[in-house]
């Protein structure tokens, strides 16, 4: 019995992977204390959006966002991409996020997810974790952790999504080969 359940569960999991993830509707706060809806903040006129989960205490997150920040202008010029940084800092440091980000000169839209509601809704295990959304708000690609130079792959993906190429089809084609 247990085996059957697990087999079914596994089959379910495997086939579920083929499904696209959407951004659920969750309440967040912006740096001015305004309650915003997760589906509103990902509006970008049909162009791609990167949603990056981070925390002020997370060193790899800072490295990743610093790398993105340095390239942001070029990326935006070329693809129209918008980068959103979502802080999962809890009440200990929620109120420090604004000055922290501002001092670093990051030009991203920054939102606070103090109790991890959006993090949970997006199934994030650990930060940093970034999602690349296509123009329709579907998750086209995602990435966890930050290794030096990862921004190159990220930009490749952004360019593909901006050009309307489906990343999934490519995967399938590879599998079929």
């Amino acid at each position: 019995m247990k085996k059957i359940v697990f087999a079914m569960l596994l089959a379910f999991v495997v086939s579920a992977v083929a499904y696209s993830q959407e951004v659920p509707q969750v309440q967040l706060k912006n740096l001015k204390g305004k309650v915003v809806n997760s589906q509103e903040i990902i509006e970008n006129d049909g162009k791609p959006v990167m949603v990056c989960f981070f925390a002020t205490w997370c060193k790899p997150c800072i490295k990743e966002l610093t790398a993105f920040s340095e390239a942001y202008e070029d990326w935006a010029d070329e693809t129209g991409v918008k980068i959103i940084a979502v802080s999962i800092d809890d009440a200990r440091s929620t109120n420090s996020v604004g000055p922290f980000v501002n001092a670093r000169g990051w030009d991203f839209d920054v939102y606070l997810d103090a109790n991890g509601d959006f993090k949970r809704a997006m199934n994030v295990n650990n930060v940093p974790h970034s999602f690349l959304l296509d123009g329709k708000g579907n998750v086209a690609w995602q990435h966890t952790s930050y290794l030096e130079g990862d921004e190159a792959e990220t930009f490749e993906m952004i360019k593909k999504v901006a050009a309307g190429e489906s990343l999934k089809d490519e995967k399938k084609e590879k599998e079929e080969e």
Partner: protein
Amino acid sequence: MKRFLFLLVAFLSAIQLFAQKDGKNENKFNVSGNFQSDLQYYFEDQKIGAVAVDERLLSNSYANFMISYGKFSAGVRFEGYYNTLLGFPNSGGKNDGFGVPSYWANFTNDKLEVTVGHFYEQFGNGLTLRSYEEKSLGIDNAILGARVKYTIVPGVNIKGLVGKQRYYWELSDGILRGVDGEIQFNEMIKSLNESQFRFGIGGSFVSKYQKEDNPIYNLPNNVATGAGRINIGYSDFNLISEYAYKINDPSADNNYIYRPGQAFLINATYSQKGLGVILSTKWVDNMSLRSDRNATLSDLTVSYLPEITRNYTYVLQAFYPYASQPMGEWGVKGEFFYKFKKGTKLGGKYGTTITLNYSRVHNIKKTAINDSTPIGTTGTYGYNTSLFAIGKELYYQDINVEISKKWSKKWYTNIAYMNLYYNYNVLMGTAGHDNVKANIAVVEATYKITDKYALKGEVQAMFTKQDKGNWILGQLEFTMPNWFFTVFDNWNYGNPDKSARVHYFNVGFGYVKGGNRIQLTYGKQREGVMCVGGVCRHVPASNGFALSISSTF
């Protein structure tokens, strides 16, 4: 349970079949989830106090599955502990086993959100209520019940909830009822939408019901907690403050005294591009609230008292972590961020970021209620104090400077220096131990060999005459696309006991692809503590292999 699982899987499969059949509607049906599994194989190592476990291998795992369809969503979580990893809350085996600890269904539209089942919630800064999960500490005090959130008009939000908290695989004895409301005037009043001046108020009320169970004392069945908060902003300046009050709530935390509790936070910030300043202060007096008055450690916490100190992540800086003291503390913090601009003398080609922070925490001044009753005597009012009556005993102090600089396309460095005072007895719950004064230095350098290959080196050193003496840590990490390899040694070279000058050597590697990550390490872990929100987890010494797999799908 088996039947439940079977039904659940059948249900999920049916939905999926339906979704596949209706392939064009793929956008409507969404299935997602995540998974994480941490396994450790334990070897004995008497030198560091690491024990081998009877099971040899222990593991913590969880998986979440979520389905959404338009405005509806539902989810379920599986957790398995075969058996629980050492150091995680287990209360004598209560946590071991496999099951479905949480499930929920939700409806959300632009104004209304309704959740039934398990949910997490935070009112304000969490002083009156915070239900949350902190996997690294093994904390999950989700509430099982119902919650409604409603936006009356833009800027005016209310929420209400009722339920019981999760207690391992069971539920708390106590019932929680809570409401929270917030008004942001700049959103509510259209003419103020773009105003430089911002103003908002909020308030929350939480009531806990737990039947009185004490043969000696007359305890309150219902405990009420309330809080008010305010936020004021002008241009680049922000001020946030919250005050919470709790009626008498004799509990294991306060040694069953009848004194009411209170907490007060003020946080002021100023920032502009390239500059950030934060000043905060905090006052806490007898403010622990749990959904079971007899609960201890990390079990069933309702109030959340955020630490005012910085959350450090370098190993030796995090060696002596601060934990909020719910029974009484006063603290102050200052933080300063500055970025020297690109092209200036100190900024160089890429800019230099400097961070300064200082924090200091004291006890609060308590006086006896009369000459014959010692402070904190069970069954009495406990003690007297007044708001911001700061005591003489220093609990914690840190001064920290950190400078991050990118030198060129190839080189990046981060250096930090910290001076620390740590009241060991209060923060670790011991007696007669020397308080720790330490100086800690960290140098981290990253060299990019090519665009995608990099080498990171880290040296950390801690100098102290107390506790276990001096430590030095060296780490090397090599990263390439999708892979990382790391090796480090943390050496307690200055231990006054020469036979205890141990090397904590670790080696590991990992693979990352998309939302998936797998990591294998082998080595020794020193005994220590990890703290979040006044809750600490004692991490026992261990020696062995650790495997961690996580995936988001």
